[in-house]
């Protein structure tokens, strides 16, 4: 399958994520959208990794082995994302307890 498909899919996911973060006010949805963007990045990493590997397989003498760095990174990101989810959800829970709402517009106290 050509690499373009993966790129377009990742792009679409990422844009949906960005749009969601910008447009929605519900913290949980924003949170999910951030996950979406992260996963778009993950998808690209895996796709490129696979592509480079395929290129190397085709002509092993010409270029150095790309290894599995890209795919390794994905695991890193997933781990970080998991950590982030736990911290983020905790924040959201705290926020809900304090404001009885999950609307980000209530969180304008950064100003002062």
């Amino acid at each position, binding site marked *: 399958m050509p690499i373009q498909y993966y790129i377009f899919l990742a792009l679409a996911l990422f844009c949906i994520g960005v749009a969601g973060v910008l447009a929605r*006010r519900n913290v949980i949805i924003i949170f999910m959208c951030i996950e979406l963007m992260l996963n778009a990045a993950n998808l690209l990493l895996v796709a490129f990794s696979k592509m480079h590997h395929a290129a190397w397989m085709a002509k092993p003498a010409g270029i150095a082995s790309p290894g599995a760095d890209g795919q390794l990174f994905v695991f890193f990101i997933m781990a970080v994302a998991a950590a982030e989810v736990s911290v983020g959800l905790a924040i959201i829970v705290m926020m809900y307890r304090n404001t009885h709402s999950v609307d*980000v*517009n209530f969180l304008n106290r*950064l*100003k002062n």
Partner: protein
Amino acid sequence: MGNIIQLAWLVPLFPLIGFLINGLGRRSLSKGAISFIGSGAILASFIVSIMIVLQVKSPGFTASQGVLKMFDFISVDKLIIPFAFQIDQLSSLFLLIITGVGFLIHVYSTSYMHDEESEHFGRYFAYLNLFVFSMLLLVMGGNFVIMFIGWEGVGLCSYLLIGFWFKNSDYNDAAKKAFVMNRIGDFGFLLAVFWIIAKVGSVDFSTVFAAAQSLSKTDITIITLLLFVGAAGKSAQIPLYTWLPDAMAGPTPVSALIHAATMVTAGIYMIARSNILYSLAPITQTVVAVTGLVTAVFAATIALQQNDIKKVLAYSTVSQLGYMFLGLGVGAYTGAVFHVMTHAFFKALLFLGAGSVIHAMHSEQDIRNMGGLKKQMPVTHITFLLGCLAIAGVPPFSGFFSKDEILAGAFSVNPVYYYIGVAGALMTAFYMFRLYAMTFTGTFRGTHEQEHHLHESPVAITFPLIVLAVLAAIAGFAGLPEVFVENGHALEHFLAPIFAESAKLKHANHLDHTTEITLMVSVTVLILITIIYAWIRFSRYRKTEADTKGLARVLENKWYVDEIYNAAIVRPLNAFSGLLNRVVEKVLIDGLVNGVGKSIQYGSRQLRLLQSGQVGSYILLMVLSILAFFALVFFTKK
């Protein structure tokens, strides 16, 4: 007698010491001591001056002997300005006049100023000594810079003395005016000095005058014109004369000192000193002659209608100085110097006489309130009359000879100068005898109290009057014209070395003797007629309340020159500086500076609005910035 010229520095030193002692000790010294020190210092200088003149007159004297170098004053690169004195015929003659007349004025002052408090008495004599010191420095200076020191010094002293009674605000204005006007003249002098330095590389008289022939025509014209600006300021010529009549605010002996012995003769001295430069610059000579002539007549017209005894004399000084400049302008340098000398005698006499009158009249200066003083004040009366005859140019009194020499010189250059000059001389005769008649003849017009107190002045006042009167009467014989006595002009022979170079350049254009005698006689007759007319008319003067009208009114108000200066220069300048202060400084420049500050404040206030605290808007901004960054990288990559 060794070489007294080597000791010439004593001449200015005595007054300086007198100044220091009187200035520092003015509270502790008694009036007697102050008078003694003040007058004694000048007397000592006078004695040294006499010895110097004798030495200079002796046949062995050469110009190079007269240069006394004390120490290096300023030395930069190749320019070395020594603190040097130059003694020669011209400066020694001036020394004699300054210290001689100065001494008499000091003696006079001891009595005239006796009512002042002791402290102010001391201050007065200190200033007076300083004045004489500055003038001596001016005259003795061996280069233009030392001359300039004295030049500004007399300006300072006149400022101090005119404003001597400093409680009176008008007097201070007069003092300020004198100083500023003088400064305008000094501006020209200083510029001329720089010009000379740039062209000649030295300010020593001998070097400069020796190099005069090699200077270009333009340079020499500019230098002489600039020097003349200086002379016009100091010697009160149009357009810078207005300070001199106002300078009457000072005590009367000071007026005598300023008008006769010091200060105003400085301009004449300077031009006579640099006569070679002027002889090489015909354009400047014309300017000098015309300015002098116009001033002579213009000031004489003003004097016709003044009622303040000192104001009349002041304008007469301006007028007589005009004659001296006329003499300088037409190349009659000896005549000009001669007139300086005779003028010093009779003008000092007249001022001191006026002071004696004012003293007797209890500070009354308006001649309309005087009259018939000759009975009570015989000595003052006679001496004053002699002074009037001398200034009016009646033979055989001194003014006749000196003025005649100048006018003869003017005639030989341009007869028009002569006729205008004679018109001025007639006016002189008229206003002087108007003054004399209104003061001394007729009936007394003052208050009874004044009449009761009228008295002849004490001997300290009458003694200088008598001495000066004698001098005013006979000084003319120092310069008998050739027509009367062959080689009778002693002064001309004495001064000949100074003007030798100029004399070579001058085209011999001597009047033949018959013309000269005709002119002399006709002028004398005219003057006598004027005198008799004025005498008769003003002896019968009655006080009227009516205001003067027409031309007389314009003359009484001095052609409104002060008002014109005020409207044309002083007020616009004031308004302009007000504008600069209020608008340019506060609004424009400060506005600009504060504007920078304010716009930064405003800008940051606007930028602060971006920080809304809304997480959403932060993120939006972030995304937009990232996009912008991508776009930037994308487009600028190549």
